[in-house]
């Protein structure tokens, strides 16, 4: 496929992209690190939104048992951080 890969830097840019695609009826594929992309049939989408750069822990309160992370954060990074608090 000759489509583009977009890496939105914030929610606003992401919302703009989705709104544009929805308005024009353009299908999008959304990926993280694409680790399971080889499974199943290929997705018939024009462009790709790549969320893998959106990483990082936004908020972590061990006493609340609540963790908020960016969508592209790896499970390994999450587990390391939780491990520090025995969780």
């Amino acid at each position: 496929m000759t489509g583009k890969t977009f890496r939105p830097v914030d929610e606003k840019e992401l919302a703009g992209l989705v709104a544009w695609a929805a308005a024009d009826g353009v299908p999008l594929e959304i990926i993280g690190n694409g680790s399971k992309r080889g499974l199943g049939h290929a997705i018939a989408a024009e462009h790709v939104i790549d969320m893998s750069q959106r990483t990082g822990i936004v908020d972590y309160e061990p006493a609340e048992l609540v963790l908020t992370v960016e969508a592209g954060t790896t499970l390994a990074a999450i587990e390391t951080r939780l491990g520090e608090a025995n969780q």
Partner: protein
Amino acid sequence: MTIAMPQPDTGVLAARDRLIGELGAIVPPDNLVTDEPGLKTYECDGLSAYRELPLAVVLPETTDEVARILDLCQRHRVKVVPRGSGTGLSGGALPLKDGVLLGLGKFNRILDIDYANRCVTVQPGVTNLAISQAVDHRGFYYAPDPSSQLACSIGGNVAENSGGVHCLKYGVTTNNLLGLEIVLMSGEIVRIGGKYMDSDGYDLLGIVTGSEGLLGVITEVTVRILPKPASVSTLLIGFDDLAAAGDCVARIIASGIIPAGLEMMDRAAVHATEEFCKAGYPLDVEALLICELDGPGPEVGELTGRVEKIAADLGARTIRRAASEQERERFWLGRKSAFPAVGRMSPDYYCIDGTIPRGRLAEVLTRMEGLSERHGLGVVNVFHAGDGNLHPLIMYDIDKPGDLEKAEALARDILTLCVEVGGVLSGEHGIGVEKRDLMGTMFSDEELKQQQRVKCAFDPEGLLNPGKVFPVLHRCAELGHMHVHRGQVPFPDLPRF
């Protein structure tokens, strides 16, 4: 009654006799209640300040009967209110004058017990406790344990996503649910999930759990069962001030320990229950914690020691470890008698249910004292501290003019406070009619409309339990829901968007 409900449909009221005749063709005579004394039994649920007589009560015992009743009601545009055991505390099963009350209490058989797959399948009217009792002899139990478990139905538990004392560690209903059969208002029977984890596609099980009877009638439930823990250790911990007790809860959790249950009672609750049942609680404390740890013996021993140390470091006045099963039961006796104990102190009480971040416990309880003084009604606090789920009990007297209104105003202020500190309107009792008009403090108009679009996908005519949960009822057409009839959209040739 001080809550506005949807305007009754005069056409439906006028055609009552015909409807009763048609319902009578679906269920046996014993399962159709139409006389006034009979209807009165169903006039309210656990939120007894609000009452209404339904048009009729029908008590189906099979999925097929439920499907035929819903189909009939949809064809005649008659509203339907599902009801399990009627122990709900937010008015979710409050009848409608022009609506059929669908009582599921007789639809109550255990269908399948599968130890190999650790699950049980039951009809919706089976009580929560009956599930645990059915598997007890093999050393299993169903984990979510609402205090009402002797009476409440599993269908009601799913509809409210109920919790209980041990849900801190084992999760609430949604975490212990594997499959459902539901009947839509159209009479269509739908199965979601089953004896396996993580069913494919969208999380419909998650959508229906906690839907308060607005999306479909639950006619079959498959739940997970667990082996009973090998050992249990229970601590009673008393503090001189609320802040230290709140810190203790936060520190236990933050250190990586998840107790099976972690409950708190304030001074008023400790005194009320001690007088009621003599559980042996210390009376010189401002806050009392009950912390229960369960699991393999060595683990429980180690964790109990760590909790004792955390409590001691924070200056706990009392730290007692139950030395025997009898003593453990005595620790719980007071907590479990809290409602009747308050019931003896005050002619009426109103139990509310909000959830806050654990870190704000002390602040919220202190501000609540101020609100209680301002409204002139006493408040007793007994609650699931481990998950920040408050249950303030407001004491009032319904026979005293103006008292109920005062209790409602105080409840509104407390719930608004919960939302203000970053919490939510309900922990486990649901929104129902009780908190319906407060939904705007938590959700924007757009968010509420989006939630209502989900409702429209299940019940486009808005006949299932209307007047509950949503403060404003939009017609589905207004929300841009497109009705697809037998797979065809109207005017298929016109461009849509």
